[in-house]
């Protein structure tokens, strides 16, 4: 059965000790490694606060103190998310983290960043305040200039709402899951000029 083959392939690619190991190479001792987890934590914060905001509806946070606080958590969560993500990206760049069959991990991570930027924009234009009026009327020119605006209308609140609360976050989460699985599948990249005796003859 193809299902059995898929299960066996998944087990081979990510056995439990590789998916959630209890040990890591000793070189994993820098603060740089924290920013990946921090990005993921900020994403979870955004999904939780965003889910609550979505449950109450788009007008709620303008009229409720709790809603405004929750929107503020979402707002600062976005700032923390991008702050951590950019530091994570720089860290991985400076480590040359794509070495050793890890190119796809970088590519998927870069896609996560790009889709996150798009998700952030759809959030900014559906705030129903002055900022969203201004941002949407300015952003439309960029999208229209390359033909995207005909399909992705930042002035259409309904379209932006469904994109922001469902389609774009689902894409970010899905890409992030793939990225995490690739990270666990290949493991962390060893340092440049690692000692010969620290590297197996076998592929990782």
């Amino acid at each position, binding site marked *: 059965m193809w299902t059995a083959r898929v299960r066996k392939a998944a087990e081979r690619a990510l056995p439990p000790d590789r998916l959630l190991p209890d040990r890591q190479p000793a070189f994993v001792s820098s603060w740089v490694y924290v920013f990946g987890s921090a990005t993921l934590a900020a994403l979870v914060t955004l999904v939780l606060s965003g889910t609550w905001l979505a449950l109450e509806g788009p007008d709620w946070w303008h009229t409720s103190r709790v809603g*405004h606080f929750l929107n503020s958590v979402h707002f600062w969560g976005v700032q923390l998310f991008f702050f951590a993500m950019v530091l994570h990206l720089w860290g991985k760049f400076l480590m040359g983290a794509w070495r050793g069959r890890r190119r796809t991990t970088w590519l998927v991570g870069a896609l996560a960043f790009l889709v996150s930027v798009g998700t952030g924009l759809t959030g900014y234009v559906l705030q129903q*305040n002055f900022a969203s009026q201004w941002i949407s009327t300015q952003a439309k*020119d960029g999208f229209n200039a390359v033909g995207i605006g005909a399909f992705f209308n930042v002035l259409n609140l309904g379209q932006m709402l469904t994109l922001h609360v469902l389609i774009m976050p689902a894409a970010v989460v899905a890409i992030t899951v793939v990225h995490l699985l690739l990270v666990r599948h290949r493991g962390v990249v*060893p340092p440049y000029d*690692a000692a010969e005796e620290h590297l197996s003859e076998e592929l*990782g």
Partner: protein
Amino acid sequence: MTWRQDDAAAARAWIGPTRPYDLLKEFAIALVVVVVLAAALAALFSSPDEPPVTLAAWARADPMDFVTTALSELDGSSGTATYGPPYVALPGAGQRIGPLNLQQLAGVRIPIDPAVDFVLEPLRTAAAGDPSLDQALRSWTAATTAERRRWVSAYATALRSASVIDGTIQAPGGDYGPVGELMQSELTLAQDGGLEGAMLTRHAFYATDYTKPLLFLADGSYLGSLAERQHLLGDQWGMMNETGSYPGQTWLWLYTLWYQVPPFSSSGNADALVWALMLVLTTGFVLVPWIPGLRSLPRRLRIYRRIWRDYYRELAR
């Protein structure tokens, strides 16, 4: 070492020293820290929520700008009327990347007739109990294009020495047919708060698409003047700013940067050119591991020596 040697070495399994590492614990701690930090920032600094500009507020605060804009919608000279796709079919309109006009290629998928959608149709909804307005609309509809042009031109001249007192346009007399009545009615409808609704709900009770009122608002100069005060204009790094003193979309810094420098800062095709440039740069960013030179840059920068300094120190011993 060459890139290939670096790449091959990094592909080998690690059999060097290891240490206990609880990934779930690290994530749980990170989650608590981020939630507490976000909640603390929210409690301390709140978040921006500058109220939106309504068409009523615009019509009351700057009635001359409002009327001038409405007149430009009527005669087809407004920003939206001359925009081209995706709103208006206008051959040759739209930004270009060299010979390529992607705006035209995408076509008119959000059709808008500024004179009808922003002025005439909203006024038709208001004309039900207003015979004078109804007559003005009939006159406009029955007029030839030449007559309309003459009326609008005469009214535009009159507006230069006009003023608005208590919601009434005080313009010198002239041969501008029904245009004065139409503009006065449009201003009154907006000041009374009925224009957004008339633009939004022509075909339905519910509304979720604000394309029309936003385009109309953006055609005037009032919205831009408010944005300028908040440092939100394109040449003020506006795309990465936020109202008040809050951080905006700072991650758009590179995209925003190009709008500040020539040739983009003075080009009529700035948006298309900046997008094209960003597409190239973004492709480069995504494909770093495949680009010779760039993929070896971290080794030359040697900042990895600081990141893995403990490992190299141990190795030196």
